Each structure stands twice: as C-alpha cells, then as structure tokens.
C-alpha cells in the first residue's frame, strides 16, 4: 500500500482531515500505514538538487570525522555516550546517505531517518558551536525534516500541528473569535483587582502589538491576563490583533515550509494592517524563532526582518524595569535559590543572552541567583525542544533527554527555575514530574506581578 488514509504525502488542508487524523488515537493507524509508505525517490532527489546548495553540501563533504562535536550534544551525553548519538554520525548516516545515494532510499531507511531527525536531535544548534569547520548539524536536521515531511515521514502530532497552522493559522484549534473572547474574559476576571484593565483589540498605530502562543488561550488563559496587567501597569499603548495573533509554529518543527510561510505571513499581515511601532511576543522561544528570526526568510523578505521591529517578551520586560515603567517592591523580591533556563531559540539563535539576567537583577534578592553551567549561548537544550516534548512515540527518548537539564539544575542548588519559554517550561515541569527533584518552575510574568508596586491608577478603590 503506497499512500495511507492518514499517513501520506499530502498535507492536512481542511478541518475534516484534521478531525479524522485526530480521531486516530496516538496515531496507531497512522504509524501502521507509515511502515508501508512508498518513498518518491525522484521527488526526493529533485528537491535536494533544488534546495541543497553549497553550504550543506560542503558541510557534508569536508566533515573531518574528528568527533569533536560529540560532547556538545546533550543526547550523546545522556545516552551513555552512545557513538550512534554523535551529531556528525547522526547527520552523515541520514542526510549524508540520502545525498550520496541520490535519493534512492527505501521505507526502512526513511523510518530510521525520521527517528533520528526527531528523537535524536532537537535542532538546538549547540553542536555547530563546537565544530572546528563550523558545521551546524542542527541546521541540517531542520533541512532533513523538510525532506521527510514532504515524503510523509513525520511524527503524527507534528503532521497534525502543521495541519492546525494550515487550517487555523494557529498551533491548536483556536479560532479568531475564541482568542479575542478568551482575552476579554480573562481581563474581565481581573478588572476588579486591577481597575481600568482592558484589552484593546485591533487598534491602529499602537506602540505595541502583542502576539501569543495558542496554548495560552487554550490551557493557560491566566497568562493572557498577566500580559494585560503588566502592559497596563507600565502604561503601555498596546493592542492585540484579532487576526494574526499566533506567534508559534509547529510547522517549523514538522519541516512544513509552506505552512511556515502561511503562518508567518498571517502575523505580518496584522503588522501591516495595524501599523504598530513594535511587536512584542509572549514568553516563548520557538515562537520568537519562527516569527522573528526565521519567519522573514519564509516570507521572502530580503532584509531578513519582519515588517516592524519585533522583540521578545524579555526584551520588553527588561526595558520596562530599566526605565522604571514597572516598579518592583524590593521587599518582595525572590528570596530562594533561583536559576535561569536559557532558551536556545532566542539566546543561541538570537543573541539575547544578557536580557533575562538583567531582569533577574531587578527581581531577585542579591545573593540568590545561581548560574547553570554551561550557560548563555553555550547552555544545553532543556531536553524537549524542536517538537520533542510533544511526540508520544518518542516519549521515552525525550524523558531520557531531560537528564542533562535535571543534573544542571541540581548542580545549581536552585529551588526555582525561571523558564521564559513555553517549551523549556514544559520540559522542566515534566522533569520534575519524572524525577521529583523538588523544584518549582515559572514564567517571568507571574513572578513580576507578585512583586509589583502598583501605580496609583491601578490601586483598587478603597
């Protein structure tokens, strides 16, 4: 059987297809069909000829096979230094082989490549910093994922995720109305405590257009309220777009480049429609990577920049605290040992290595902050990046992958881990569930709110 009902080369385009695929619990049928899925070797080779240019070809060719990248990969380290987890081996035995064989690979090969691309690499790009030739395996795995997706060899959850973006322009089935209503509802819930709290929708020429992660709407609506409270407290002139509010991209994890483009163009259209001075995105790493760092290229923007200046939530927060727009009550600063998770997606991949530390300098009582080792752009992946967190089939591998972060955290002696990234936050929650090391974890928003000195206009009426 070449093409399955669920597992095939066709992306999800409609709500019906989405519902049907979601109905195949855990992808049981989907993965069964995948074992029979044919490889379109001609398409594979044509795609490679059109898209695999000198950068990747040279990387594959000049790799000295020196193994200096081995220690840089957390998955190599936690899997008892299994040689099969050496970054260079992982990419040479998958993408390298496909190129060498001019696309002539079979079903079994593609299944192996799929497991390697999604269960042995989180595209954290750390190895690229340790290779003397500057070979970035994370980038090549991203590229490989695109080839695998095109052939239908993609984990069930990510096929769905990419489909969600195609159908809803969001990573979950959250409609535009639902987004606005949830935001408004959360604001109403908090109005009493914070007088004057509002959520301006579709206001043109605002200073800030705020975008979120659909999970917040669906599962963590209090995050929306917290964002509103902080913007309000800082006296910001802000707005949310009713359309183009989703900043994340599971399509990026899936390697569905066409969906990546659709998704990000939707957000850029909102910027062009509302003409805000800046866009601020929520505390999410891959959302920032997708919309701000990679997005301009998917959308074909030659200057590599989104239509308006886009900053991560931590950049806004650092600025607001620095400029005194938000005031912290020193009495209520964090007084437990606390550490910070550097998200690869905006630290290693967008240079924001000092921003969160500046915030912590305002909100942590001196003497309580502990650095992880290594840190900043050299930090290890949380263990759940690149879609790893969400793939049921690879859950055991993911759980093993959490060990690096667990040990890094234990070594700091911290009781609280600040993780200004949804993926990292999830991974750290899961590692606490899995290993019970007795830590708490948090985004920045609730922490800052808990120690905020409210401006007069926000004090509840007596």
């Amino acid at each position: 059987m070449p093409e399955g009902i669920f597992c095939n080369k066709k992306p999800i385009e409609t709500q019906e297809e989405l519902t049907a695929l979601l109905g195949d619990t855990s992808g049981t049928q989907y993965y069964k069909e995948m074992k029979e899925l044919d490889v379109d070797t001609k398409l594979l080779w044509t795609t490679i000829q059109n898209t695999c240019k000198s950068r990747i070809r040279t990387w594959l060719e000049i790799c000295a096979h020196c193994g200096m990248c081995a220690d840089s990969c957390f998955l190599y380290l936690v899997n008892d230094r299994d040689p099969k987890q050496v970054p260079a081996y992982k990419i040479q035995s998958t993408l390298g082989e496909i190129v060498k064989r001019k696309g002539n690979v079979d079903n079994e090969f593609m299944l192996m490549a799929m497991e390697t691309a999604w269960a042995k690499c989180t595209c954290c790009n750390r190895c690229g910093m340790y290779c003397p030739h500057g070979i970035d395996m994370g980038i090549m795995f991203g590229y490989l994922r695109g080839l695998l997706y095109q052939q239908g060899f993609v984990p069930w959850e990510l096929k769905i995720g990419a489909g969600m973006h195609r159908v809803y322009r969001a990573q979950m089935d959250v409609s535009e109305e639902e987004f606005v209503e949830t935001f408004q509802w959360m604001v109403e819930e908090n109005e009493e405590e914070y007088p004057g709290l509002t959520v301006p929708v579709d206001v043109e020429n605002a200073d800030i257009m705020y975008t979120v992660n659909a999970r917040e709407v669906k599962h963590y609506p209090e995050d929306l309220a917290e964002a509103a409270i902080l913007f309000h407290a800082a006296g910001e002139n802000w707005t949310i777009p009713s359309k183009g509010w989703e900043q994340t991209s599971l399509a990026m994890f899936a390697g569905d480049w066409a969906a990546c483009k659709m998704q990000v163009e939707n957000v850029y259209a909102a910027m062009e429609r509302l003409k805000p001075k800046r866009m601020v995105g929520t505390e999410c790493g891959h959302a920032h990577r997708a919309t701000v760092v990679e997005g301009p290229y998917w959308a074909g923007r030659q200057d590599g920049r989104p239509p308006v200046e886009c900053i991560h939530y931590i950049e806004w927060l650092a600025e607001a605290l620095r400029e005194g727009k938000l005031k912290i009550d020193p009495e209520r600063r964090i007084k437990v040992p606390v550490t910070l998770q550097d998200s690869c997606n905006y630290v290693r991949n967008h240079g924001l290595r000092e921003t969160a530390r500046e915030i912590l300098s305002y909100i942590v009582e001196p003497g309580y902050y502990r650095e992880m080792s290594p840190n900043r752009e050299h930090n290890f992946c949380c263990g759940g990046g690149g879609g790893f967190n969400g793939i049921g089939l690879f859950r055991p591998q993911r759980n093993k992958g959490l060990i690096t972060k667990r040990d890094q955290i234990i070594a700091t002696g911290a009781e609280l881990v600040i993780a200004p990234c949804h993926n990292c936050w999830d991974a750290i929650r899961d590692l606490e569930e899995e290993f019970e090391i007795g830590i708490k974890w948090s985004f920045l928003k609730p922490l800052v709110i808990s120690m905020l000195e409210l401006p007069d206009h926000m004090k509840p009426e007596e």
Partner: protein
Amino acid sequence: MYEFLTGFMFWLALGVCLIGMAVRTILYFKGLQWNLDRVAYKAYPVQGFKGAIRSIYKWILPFGTHGWRKQPFMTVMFFSFHIGAVVVPLFLLAHNLFLKEQLGFSLITINGGVADFLSWLVIITLIFIILRRLALPEVRILTNWYDYLIILISAAPFITGLLARYEVGNYSFWLLAHIISGELLLFAIPFTKLSHIFLFFASRAQLGMDYGIKRGGLKGTVMDW
C-alpha cells in the same frame, strides 16, 4: 624523469590545485543563497564580514574557542600537525630555492633545524591522530577508509621528505618519491576532503555571517565562540 616531474608535472599540479580551489571557492560563495540558508548575507555586508572574520580568527587560535579548550589533547595534536603541514611546504629553504629558480622569487625561509622539527612533529602528531581515531568510540564510528587515505596523502610528502633528508638508502629514489607524493597532494586538494584547506575558511565564514547577521549580530551580540 626528474626534469619532467619538477617541470611540467609540478606546474600542472600547482595549476590544478590553485585553479581548482579558486573555482571551488567561487562556486561555494555563489551557492550561498539568502533564502535557502535563511541568512540575509547581502543586506548586511559589514556585520556579515565582521562575523566571518571573527569566526575564522577565533578558530585558528590555539585554545581560542570553547571547542578547542574542551579538547586539549586534540587541540595540541591539531595545531602541531597543521603548523607543520602549512609552514614546512611553504617556507622550507629547499622549496624556496626551487621557487627562485623557477619563478625568480622566493618566500621567507625557516632554518633547517626548525624544518626538521616541524616535519617530525607532523608525523608524530598524525600517529597520535590515528591512535585517537582507533581508541575513541565516538571517532571510530565516524571513521572510514577515506579518512585514512587522506591522512596517508597528507603524510606521504613528509615521510619521503625526511627519508631523503636523512639519505636513508637511495637519496634520489626518496627525492623522486617526495616530489611525486607532493604533487599527488596538490592534485588531491580540489577533489577530496583536503579541499578543507580553502573551504575551511569558506565554511567558517558562512557560520560567522549567520551569527553576525541573523543569530544575534544585528542585536549587537558578539558570539562567544
């Protein structure tokens, strides 16, 4: 024979090497595509250039990067080997006398003692590099016959050169073997992994531009290699 090898063949080998590598380097940079690589190379030439230079500079400095510092043994082996591999062929007195004769100019030269030392260093470090390949599972899994072939091609001019230098057995035999293996190395450069002699700079420059432009450079963050 000697005439032919030091005349026609020498020029052919050098020409193939230099023209071949010039072509490959040009093709490399022409093959960089801002939209596929997702790096706006052309939009930010200054930041890109700075990133590229830094990425090369840090990595040609012994212990200049986290990567080198993490692997001190490999770093010492790598730099000892490469200093010899680059310096000896370019600055050996005998090579430069030959150059002067052929071209009418020569480069600076190193004295005989230093040349001997560096040549021995090349061979000894290559032995350690081979032993490392055999000993470490993470390197063994990557290694294939091609890697040993490259090491052999790299080592041969030094082994034969030293044998000729110490006149072990028949001097003119080793001299011919030395010239042949040297020319073989030149021929091999554009067509094998030895192309890294030039493409190292290209590849490092590319990742440097990536960091210098996209991954933080435009935010003013200088990558901590």
